[in-house]
């Protein structure tokens, strides 16, 4: 029986801060995450040719690891997390993933032994549970998927994560058609069901291997919405619709922590401030330091309550200032140094507010994710915490209300288009049933008809 969150970890939004979480997590070599300081989390991708063989891949990750560790020592950074997001070969062949983890960890141990630098290794297993046409969430690939976690954990990975994809087939269809119920069904219902399944299994592996069951992100859905929404002038999706998807995603990603994960949540989970407010787990975030990987409208704001500060991903190659992993880890480390000074000098709340305010009015997405508002979304989720559907719907409605309040204050300005998209999504939400079973059966019928690739058996339905 999973324990669902029905109350908030923090008594008020103002208690939330970067570098501090209610439940810090010890990991790897001397590191403690969310225990009063922030730590850079570097993420990288091998060059395309490196994937040709296991030997080449291992070599590439050795270079990456050595470069990054060396730079951290050169600039006097006290701590670092390395995140290896698996390329497909590493998860489909767990022995490859394990070989990489082992090679990286060996180098990190050398640096830790020699310099005492606190460090940990996160491996983010690829969600390989699909074949060309269909998701295959429970099919043949499930065993390989779990084996990849276990092998990497045994070989040296300290933190276990994944960006899981449950519900994505329904979501992909719905987001391009402004189908609010479909968004809610894909993320809040199907996504949550899949999360509950996989995270119980990952938690068991973490327990068995003495590693940290870290957390997930709704990259597959909420970030897809954010990317389709794009910049201020893009015309592919209303940003007011994208933030509703994001709010729902918090209810979904929370399921990992209910099934046994303890954080740090994944960097690209822009829903993480909401999750921290409810669960108190430490979180990784990315923002202006991930412009090497994508553009978004909240480069500073996301730093507001982070415990790990990440660059999302960068391809390994040379730059004027060293290799990319050296340049970006250095940028991250200096950002962390600034936050850590703020923490020590009693200025952390001011810095947090400056970060939040610099993007709060830039876009409705940032407005809702500003920690004061994120906290309100958290409350809406916790209110019906036992019911995945209702709490998702609550989060969605709350995010609409927050945007409306922002508009009424005059500070958040919307285009007429965004305003009417907001009105539509809210009207759709308010009209939905409160009965989770009815919602399930209505949407099951509907999406079985409309989405050819939707297979209910993926969710045990």
């Amino acid at each position, binding site marked *: 029986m999973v324990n669902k969150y029905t109350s908030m970890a923090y008594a008020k939004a103002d208690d939330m801060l970067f570098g501090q979480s209610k439940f810090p997590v010890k990991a790897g070599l001397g590191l403690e995450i969310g225990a009063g300081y922030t730590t850079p989390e570097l993420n990288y991708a091998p060059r395309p040719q490196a994937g040709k063989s296991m030997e080449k891949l291992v070599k590439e990750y050795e270079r990456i690891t050595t470069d990054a560790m060396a730079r951290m020592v050169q600039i006097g950074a006290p701590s670092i997390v390395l995140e290896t997001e698996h390329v497909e070969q590493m998860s489909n062949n767990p022995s490859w993933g394990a070989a990489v983890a082992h090679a990286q960890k060996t180098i990190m141990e050398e640096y830790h032994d020699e310099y005492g630098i606190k460090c940990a290794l996160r491996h983010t297993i690829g969600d390989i549970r699909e074949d060309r046409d269909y998701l295959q969430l429970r099919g043949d690939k499930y065993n390989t998927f779990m084996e990849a976690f276990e092998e990497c954990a045994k070989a040296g990975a300290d933190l276990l994560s994944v960006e899981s994809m449950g519900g994505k087939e329904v979501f992909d269809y719905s987001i391009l058609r402004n189908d609010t119920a479909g968004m809610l069904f894909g993320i809040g219902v199907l996504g949550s069901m899949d999360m509950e399944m996989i995270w119980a299994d990952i938690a068991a592996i973490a327990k068995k291997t003495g590693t940290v069951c870290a957390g997930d992100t709704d990259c597959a859905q909420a970030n897809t919405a954010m990317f389709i929404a794009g910049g201020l002038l893009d015309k592919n999706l209303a940003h007011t619709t994208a933030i509703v998807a994001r709010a729902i995603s918090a209810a979904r990603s929370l399921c990992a922590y209910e099934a046994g994960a303890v954080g740090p949540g994944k960097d690209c989970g822009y829903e993480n401030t909401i999750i921290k407010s409810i669960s108190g787990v430490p979180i990784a975030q990315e923002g202006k330091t991930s412009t090497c990987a994508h553009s978004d409208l909240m480069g500073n704001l996301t730093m507001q309550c982070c415990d790990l500060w990440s660059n999302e991903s960068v391809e390994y190659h040379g730059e004027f200032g060293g290799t990319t992993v050296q340049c970006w880890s250095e940028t991250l480390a200096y950002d962390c140094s600034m936050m850590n000074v703020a923490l020590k000098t009693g200025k952390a709340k001011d810095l947090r507010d400056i970060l939040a305010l610099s993007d709060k009015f830039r876009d409705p997405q940032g407005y809702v994710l500003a920690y004061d508002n994120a906290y309100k979304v958290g409350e809406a989720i916790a209110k019906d915490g036992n019911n995945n559907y209702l709490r998702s719907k609550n989060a969605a409605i709350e995010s609409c209300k927050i945007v409306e309040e922002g508009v009424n204050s005059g*500070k958040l300005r919307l285009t007429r288009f965004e305003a009417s998209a907001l009105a539509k999504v809210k009207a759709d939400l308010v009209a939905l049933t409160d009965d989770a079973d009815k919602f399930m059966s209505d949407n099951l019928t509907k999406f079985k008809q409309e989405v050819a690739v939707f297979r209910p058996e993926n969710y045990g339905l």
Partner: protein
Amino acid sequence: MLDLKLEDIDGILVRYNVALEKEMTPDEAAEELYPKDELIYPVAKAIYEGEEDDVVDALQAAIDAGKKPIDLIDDALMVGMGVVTQLYDEGIIFLPNVMMSADAMLNGIEYCKSKTTDVPESKGKVVCHVAEGDVHDIGKNIVAALLRAAGYDVIDLGRDVPVDEVIQAVTKEKPILLTGTALMTTTMYAFKEINDKLLEKGIKVPFACGGGAVNQDFVSQYDLGVYGEEAADAPKIADAIVAGTTDIAALREEFHKH
């Protein structure tokens, strides 16, 4: 929490989208573009609104009044969709509206076909695919939808499509255009292979490539490549080809923006 005064916000960020928003509402703008014919108007309007049932009702009314189903495809459905694409291109409406309208239009075409034995003529065939090893297919789905909306017959090979399967499809279908989408630096090299295998067979079809990882420099490295930055460029490239520009250099001249 610290806060900003209302008057201070403008110095920190500019909501250019709000500042530049067009005066006219989308509905007003659409109203100006609908054809005036009283049998066609309701079809066009129902397409714009994305209401499949209304499209069918309006089509039936036009058929009852003597219009030929086959003509309604070009004269009503495509015209209605033209209104939608024009508004999208002008930044007045957003993509989900286009997708819903395209669904309604395709449904309408099926309906017209079911009412006649005539076979409609398409503007041309386009083969779309996502590179081998790559599952990121939303961009491709948008490309395919916009091409269909523009009246092209789209053969969608899906995602993670092996190079040889693309070659087979092109050999078999003889499209006017092939499109490829790749979002990963690791998968986009498949485009070069496709290019080389097509050339080996002497097939010189323009190969429009796009997607997150792909850039103009990369696409310019192989002979058939034409880079497209936005999904909306795909129907424009196809239109240019139909209008007679089949030379790759000329297409690049027109569509390469950087």
